[in-house]
């Protein structure tokens, strides 16, 4: 996994609440058996005027000029600013894959849906929760200032504005450690393989039916 220490970049504002993972990456792209190649289809139904198909050349598709992501000032964004309950709905990890493939490394919102929040950390994306009032201020600043940039610093656990304001955020220590070091969860967990085995042995005594054959 790609490590995350600090990201500075253009902020893309998605000014609506309850953005679901169907919107982030529509179902037709879930047929892929790979983890990459989803970036051109990020927000596909909002971003293009035609209906997207897997494997097509997106550079020749008609763009929806009204969708914020297509505005020149937001090109190359690496930070996404959003409203409440971002990433709700389907558990599809294709959503963070699409965000990361597009180049988004950090998300800022007042709240995120649980499964999506989790999935981000597994893909080197940092979802940052800031108070609604701060998010509102950031939206205003982004809309007022072309090419507005923020810095998201995981080491210092803060978001820094161009004029030096700092907003602290919380993140679980374990997740922070994994993200800072780009660590693979599975490798870490397998260090506790003996504990898992011991637990399993005890459950085999107390609830043997769990370990029956599924045939």
């Amino acid at each position: 996994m790609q490590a995350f220490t600090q990201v500075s970049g253009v902020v893309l504002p998605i000014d609506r609440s309850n953005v679901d993972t169907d919107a982030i990456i529509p179902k037709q792209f879930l047929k892929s058996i790979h983890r990459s190649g989803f970036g051109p289809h990020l927000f596909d139904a909002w971003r293009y005027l035609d209906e997207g198909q897997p494997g097509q050349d997106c550079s020749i598709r008609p763009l929806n000029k009204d969708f914020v992501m297509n505005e020149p000032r937001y090109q190359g964004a690496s930070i996404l600013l959003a409203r409440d309950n971002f990433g709700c709905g389907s558990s599809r990890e294709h959503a963070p894959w699409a965000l990361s493939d597009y180049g988004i490394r950090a998300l800022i919102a007042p709240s995120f849906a649980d499964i999506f929040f989790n999935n981000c950390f597994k893909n080197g994306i940092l979802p940052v929760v800031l108070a609604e009032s701060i998010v509102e201020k950031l939206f205003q600043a982004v809309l007022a200032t072309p090419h507005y940039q923020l810095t998201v610093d995981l080491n210092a656990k803060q978001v820094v504005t161009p004029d030096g304001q700092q907003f602290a955020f919380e993140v679980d220590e374990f997740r922070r450690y994994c993200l800072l070091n780009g660590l693979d969860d599975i490798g870490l967990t397998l260090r506790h393989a003996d504990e898992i085995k011991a637990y399993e042995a005890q459950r085999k005594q107390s609830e043997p039916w769990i370990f029956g054959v599924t045939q």
Partner: protein
Amino acid sequence: MMKPTTLYEKLWRSHVVREESDGTALIYIDRHLVHEVTSPQAFEGLKLANRPLWRVNSILATADHNTPTTNQEVIADPVSRLQVETLDKNCAKYNITEFPMGDHRQGIVHVIGPEQGATLPGMTVVCGDSHTSTHGAFAALAMGIGTSEVEHVMATQTLITQRAKTLRVSVEGTLSKGVTAKDVALAIIGKIGTAGGTGFAIEFAGSAIRSLTMEGRMTLCNMAIEAGARAGMVAVDDTTIQYVKGRPFAPKGALWDKAEAYWRTLVSDEGALFDKEVKLEAAQIEPLVTWGTSPEMVVPVNGHIPDPQLESDITRREGMERALRYMDLTPGKAITSIQIDKVFIGSCTNSRIEDLRAAAQVLKGKRIAANIKLALAVPGSGLVKAQAEQEGLDVIFKEAGFEWRNPGCSMCLGMNDDRLSPGERCASTSNRNFEGRQGALSRTHLVSPQMAAAAAVAGHFADVRALIG
């Protein structure tokens, strides 16, 4: 005396392998359900790292999202076909129990788990699918996970997670005739919102919940995720025990007795404290219809489209306005005046035998309205389909003008050919009315199976209570 504990707490404690000082825990996973869409990258990851499966007999696999509901012999779309074949290959390679296409036990993963007794009380159940919450109906701790976590569970039999807060939603009293578990679910989401359950594990309790069948409880827990909850659950009682008994993967003989004794303890103790409580009166719940693009945008069938101007919160108001534009609806319009194009009865929310019976009861001796372009009945599994056919339900559906299809997710998300065309409006028993969910620019209204049947007959939304008398 021991401190009274919640059901969630009991399930959590009995599965913690280790806990870090920051609250992050490693919990043991008893059952892992696998389907074709969210597993290929996980298998690929295992292969690349050369890691074995930790416990192959914890896994049960089936293809459901991409499967055609007409001819199951061939998947015409080569991309869908490759995904289903990839699952078959991976299951063969790792010796995983799979119900492949054509097997009479194949179906939607959340229907077949309980049907087979592969979901049992007291288990932790995961699946790379958000509606895994369904299995909580059995007093299991059931959670949807992402593909990286699917790989993690395959390799370690554990999940890294944090303890959730507890929310008890109590529904007391008796549900009126024509009001179903689906309406209860929508009423709860309408009340607490689609983010109301974020960070919580919900326990559904109260006399109205206790009187639900297992099918009804599954419908309810299925939609816990639409309230943003990490899990939904219902305590064990006689209904649970009776449902599980005799299922293929359930314990038998002396082991059954031991299991049953333990399962009976899977209830929240009297006096157990929850982080939050929400209460609803069953008698006040009416048949509901969603009008917008989020399950919380819901009103009674005899109600009207709400007016965004009356909403004081700007973000919410804009959300309502956007939803109305997308749905092509105007404030003040009566729900019963909304004409529909298609009807879908199916999905992991409402495709079990009880759902099909309830819809058939409304459809018996009637025909779908002339403006209905397509009405689909899609059973949740091959076994549900066979049972329905044995009861003659297929005949009722077909005589009413419905198409009687083979099991799968079907038009719930339209990864196969079952889709809405742009602009089409559907009365659907599924769980999500998001923009484009049932096809690009499609318009979805979520309802119960009875209400979908009533809408099919009327051609527009109609109060099912008038039809069933």
